[in-house]
């Protein structure tokens, strides 16, 4: 993980552009995640101080929304759909397979920093279930074999 000292100026700048009001916590968190890719736990101290909140309160909000992450994302983010249609088309098997292949659970990143895994609920691609996205690209009819091939491609592309 990156040294927070190098990220601190960015965090302080985002804090500066928003008015220091507890109500601005969400926009601030989004701002930080959009810029840094995640919310470094060390940033919570500065966020809490600026908004006159406790660290626990800020942490509570971050952990409430699955969207926010506290570790840097991998180079590629894989999202696996867990909604009805995909579930019905063997999505669960794909999910287990993916976790096994990558050696991580949802909301985690592989040790080599290449992939992060996130759940998602319906990608509007139900006709081609089960669906996943890698970064912003939607892919359908993902069998376990297809998944492995995709992994290899993205790894190779590196």
């Amino acid at each position, binding site marked *: 993980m990156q040294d927070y000292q190098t990220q601190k100026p960015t965090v302080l700048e985002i804090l500066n552009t928003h008015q220091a009001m507890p109500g601005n916590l969400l926009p601030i968190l989004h701002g930080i995640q959009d810029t840094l890719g995640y919310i470094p736990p060390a940033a919570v101290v500065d966020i809490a101080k600026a908004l*006159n909140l*406790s660290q*626990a309160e800020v*942490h*509570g909000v971050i952990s*409430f929304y699955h969207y926010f992450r506290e570790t840097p994302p991998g180079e590629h983010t894989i999202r696996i759909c867990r909604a009805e249609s995909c579930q019905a088309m063997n999505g669960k098997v794909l999910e287990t397979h993916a976790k096994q292949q990558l050696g991580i659970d949802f909301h985690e990143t592989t040790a080599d920093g290449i992939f992060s895994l996130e759940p998602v609920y319906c990608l509007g691609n139900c006709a081609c279930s089960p669906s996943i996205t890698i970064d912003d690209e939607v892919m359908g009819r993902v069998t376990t074999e297809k998944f492995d091939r995709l992994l290899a491609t993205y790894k190779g592309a590196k």
Partner: protein
Amino acid sequence: MSANNEIDYGTPASSSANQVTLEIDGHKVTVNAGSSVMRAAAEAGISIPKLCATDSLDPFGSCRMCLVQIEGARGYPASCTTPVAEGMKVCTQNDKLASIRRGIAELYISDHPLDCLTCAANGDCELQDTVGQVGLREVRYGFEGENHLDSEKDTSNPYFSFDPAKCIVCSRCVRACEEVQGTFALTIDGRGFDSKVSPGQNQPFMESECVSCGACVQACPTATLMEKAVIDNGVPEHSTITTCAYCGVGCSFKAEMKGEQLVRMVPDKNGQANHGHSCVKGRFAFGYATHKDRITTPMVREKISDPWREVSWEEAIGFAANKLKGIQAKYGKDSIGGITSSRCTNEETYLVQKLIRAGFGNNNVDTCARVCHSPTGYGLKSTFGESSGTQTFDSVMQSDVIMVIGANPTDGHPVFGSMMKRRLRQGAKLIVVDPRSIDLVSNSPHVKADYHLKLRPGTNVAVVTALAHVIVTEGLADEKFALERCDVESFGKWKTFVALPEHSPEAVAELTGVPAETMRAAARLYATGGNGAIYYGLGVTEHSQGSTTVIGIANLAMATGNIGRDGVGVNPLRGQNNVQGSCDMGSFPHEFVGYRHVSDSQTRMQFESAWGVTLSSEPGLRIPNMFGAAIDGSFKGLYVQGEDIAQSDPDITHVHHALRELECLVVQDIFLNETAKFAHVFLPGSSFLEKNGTFTNAERRISPVRKVMTPLGGKEDWEVTQDLSNALGYPMNYSHPSEIMDEIAALTPQFAGVSYEKIDEMGSIQWPCNDETPDGTPIMHADHFVRGKGRFMLTEYVATEERTSSKYPLILTTGRILSQYNVGAQTRRTENVAWHEEDRLELHPHDAEVLGISDGDWCGVKSRSGETVLRALITDRMQPGVVYTTFHFPHSGANVITTDNSDWATNCPEYKVTAVHVAKVAQPSAWQQEYQDFSDNQLSLLENRIAVNE
């Protein structure tokens, strides 16, 4: 977990004056409007099962266990969140409700370890009670599914453990930390099934923002948050109400016992000072009371270089009496004296001063309040007519503007600090006048000072007078109040004085370091923002102009009409538990009980006839004069009860010199404290758990102190004083402290109505309590000032002689922190050292850089009086040019550097301003090395004491 056998009404009481009548299970019930249905039922003796509700917190409505049926209403509303209404018909029990509740209980239990019989909370668990109450007998869901049963236990806090496997995620702990304590250290991490309680960012408690107040432990209905002492010793079986012996808040506690063993201290919901809240000291730090360092056998020695000799009580008392009599025979009646303690009870303090005045035959009695709040006594007595704060603590809940001057309530008076924070979160405005950025300024969640007057230490008077200048010149004074209630002539003179251009904010901005505009804005806010209340502490009194600032504060309150009702007033925050009481009890050399001068012959005659002796009309020696007289050879014997003058008094080398000159120093204490290292007679004291008596807190509240265990040394402190008096030939014959209180009541107008029966009946009483105010006086000066008309006094700023120079360029100021108490003799002997293991020198990053000091470096701190060495703590709480330390550890020697400058009126030492030179050093100072040698030697003399039966 809540205290044993207490009714929990589920939701807080409603303060509404209107009443509502409803029907619950066929019974007519009348309650205050705004009560919850749950509370109404509880008041009628009907208990509705509940998990997430408790009466110290606002209802939350998450567990659904408390469902009821209400005629005409749809579904099953939660009784904790449903307010009562006139004519409502509620059913709390029927088959349908029972089955829903069982279903809910089953869900909780299916994710809960079923080890009730071996659980530390067995018999004291609300989940267990509730499950029993709803009649759950079997659990259909297996334990195979996902559950939390193997979550890891967090034992990082020394006093309580957190076992998430037992957590039902009711959020009571989270809400307690927010609503009651105001620290917001806990949150719910995640959501849904994954949700769990998280201290800070999912940290162990000790690494989080938690200050260990215990409110969450109190609120937890299960064994998730649990005192380690209960896990180790089992659930207590009986309890006694008593009062915390640490700070001037005077919190009421239930001492929960197993036989003679104190298992835990639980804050008392009915306590009128604390309403069920506590801080880490009173709640948990009582282990010192049975610490192995307690000395429980009397000891004597001829010279302080001799080893101690354990002797019987008779021999020790006889030894002391002979010595003291011998000294008086040789050097005269006035060659001995005594010091009373602000930590002992009112009765004990009264007895010591009586022994000195009647037994010693002089007025050489003083108390440690000399070194803290004597200027309060002087300043408030001269202006208002009574030496005490004007309000109850609760009054702050009606304040609109709160001004805190030279006090740090969240550390020094934590439970009151929490109440103040609650009021601030409700929207009251805050002005802080302090050289440091205390937590209230911006380091407490949801609380922020509107104005922080970060002044240079020693310029309080200039700032307070500048505030007065703005109020008068901008026409913001409450003329009507001042003219009606105050002495008109003094008001006029004062107005002319403060209006002088040299007192304007602009004129003193440079001197005080506070921007003129900030002073103006603060003055306007205080004068016009509604109910204005001032709270101040040692940062006001411990200065060469301490009394002047107190007077200045009183002037501000009178000029703005902020006196005599709820929400306003002038309130000293007293440091030690019984500072107010020890002052009330006639501990000063010039005053009898109730602040009456010894030269007032009518009062004196009253005491002479009650005590059967002739009393001196000459004020005796103050503490600093005793030291002076000891050094010049005219003062030779001293009796010190429960006070550590060799650590707490300023210019310690001078004090040590004086103590060495004494021919007989008698120390009565629970430990061989620093002073006892210079003593000839050591009389074992009793802790607050070992005696009966009363303490008086900062709001004049007299609260009971109750004996829950036999004194380890065999005697309560008042018995020892009585024995000494008898041995000296002045007979005393009390059989219980209540008789001492009766004598105090008979001799003191403010206490005329006080008795143990009355205290038992009311729980506690705020003096004055007499025929006019039989139930005591929460708010003083309501219709008229005690002295008749309030008196304005002029407050000329005189710079302290303690000035910075090229040789001593920085100003040192001193203070205290939450986990430690005063000289630390008690807290250092508890697990509280986990939070503060040494005193540090705080300095601003800028100064640190100039001096080449990094965090943790050893710094030599040198003043005109002496030198010591402390480790550096670099923080931007400080302002450049000002350094700060605490004095909880004797070897820190903070008082080696403080000077003997003192308040002009009362000799209260100027602890808060010392010019110093700071440099990086490699080793402890010469004083520290010398003192370490002396102290080691004394400890070996104690170690090698000659035992009693050898």
